């Protein structure tokens, strides 16, 4: 084990690292990307609204599923609901359609892009 005090060890570990305090280019706080920050705020609001609407849609889909399969639904049943792989896939497809419909105009000028997945989108482009 290290024989140094915690403070001494931290000082030793920080030796020669003064430059990291500046973190050049690192955006702290809440940056905006448009000249008019109100555009940033509006986009944020639109994304949050989309998320909140999806929560309601998700709940509706689960409710309908439970009513169809169980004949009844309670808040506890919704919370405990574990979708089957098929139902999970159905929701994923529904979510994709919903998201495209809401936001496709954002990138109208540059087209639909590539495959919507981390693996193909980011890594294969490196």
């Amino acid at each position, binding site marked *: *084990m290290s024989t140094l005090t915690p403070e001494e060890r931290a000082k030793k570990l920080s030796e020669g690292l003064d*430059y990291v305090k500046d973190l050049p280019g690192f955006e702290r706080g809440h940056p905006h990307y448009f000249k008019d920050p109100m555009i940033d705020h509006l986009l944020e609001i639109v*994304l949050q609204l989309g998320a909140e609407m999806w929560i309601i849609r*998700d709940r509706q889909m689960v409710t309908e599923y439970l009513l169809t399969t169980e004949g009844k639904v309670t808040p506890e049943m919704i919370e*405990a609901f574990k979708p089957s792989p098929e139902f999970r896939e159905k929701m994923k497809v529904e979510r994709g359609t919903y998201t495209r419909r809401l936001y496709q105009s*954002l990138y109208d000028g540059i087209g639909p892009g590539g495959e*919507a997945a*981390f693996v193909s989108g980011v890594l294969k482009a490196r």
Partner: protein
Amino acid sequence: MGHIETKSLLTRGFNGNTPELLNRADEAYCDFVSGARNLLMYAQFQNIGNLGEAELDQAAKATGHRPNSPDAIKALVMKVPEVATYFRVKRTLQESYWRRIAESYGLKQTEFEQALAEADQMGPGSVTYDPNFVYPGYATVDIHVQPGGYTGQRLGALTYDYGTKIFFGGAGDADSLHHSMAEKTSAPKDGVVKRVMEIGCSIGQMACGLKKRYPDAEVWGTDIGAPMVRYAHWRTIQQGLDVLYAQMPAEDLDFPDNHFDIVTAHLLFHEIPVPVIKRILAEAKRVLRPGGVFVLWDFFSAKNRSGASNFMGLMDASDNGEPFAPGFVNCDVEALMEHAGFKLRSHDPQELGRTGRVGDKPI
């Protein structure tokens, strides 16, 4: 408060090895964010990279000078509406999921903390950490814009677990990426594997994969963050695996010389400053036995990436809490490994874009 049963703590169970969020609404919110990231970010990654790169090329032609500071680059490329939109969307989605995950688990903050405290004393495996540890500055950054980063919140590792599930857009569920990399982590040439360590192990996904691959070996996971190793231990107990976790800076390990057969690091080096990388390489070589192997899993170096990809990497550093990543991708880590005394193997196994550099400690 009595003993905390995992079943009563996680009423909605697990998703793979990751605890489910505490209510359906939070899960649906994060599903939306994850899907939106896939559609609005990952699908547009190449388009936006090309747009940014073209803008920088044009500036270079017009002025004879290519902007290279993050501020200058941003001032230029954010004039393109789609580029500004992309980074606005990215930042908002990133901030949104951290906030929602923390709020969800925060509903049972006290119970989670008690579960971690109980796990501290339980097996299989073990965890050691220093409650009085003082972190060096570089380890207190809000990496990935996660409030508190890897070290500043008691439940930060739990939040990080679900956050990385969203980050990978579902591609890493059930620890599949980490276990795949554990399978592909090169072994010493003599095949002897008695002790293995993952440095910067975070929540222990790869350490568990290594334990599955080498069930008879002593497997260690070390990390500078106490919240990380404590949660890694709790998470590993849920899987019934015997992994030893310890809070240790990778550049100052409390192990004897020539102790390990394999030391590996996964996505650690791009989160730390280059001087620390050099110290870690020296320390890894010290604790490896002659003939032991160091395997570095991390991003490709800038020299092996396209201009558009490097532009996106620079933006990621600035807007996604990756302040040390540009230093790493430009540092020629292969040369640093050789300088530390490793003999590099010619073959680099690759897994999902993270290149595995393999260095043997000479006999």
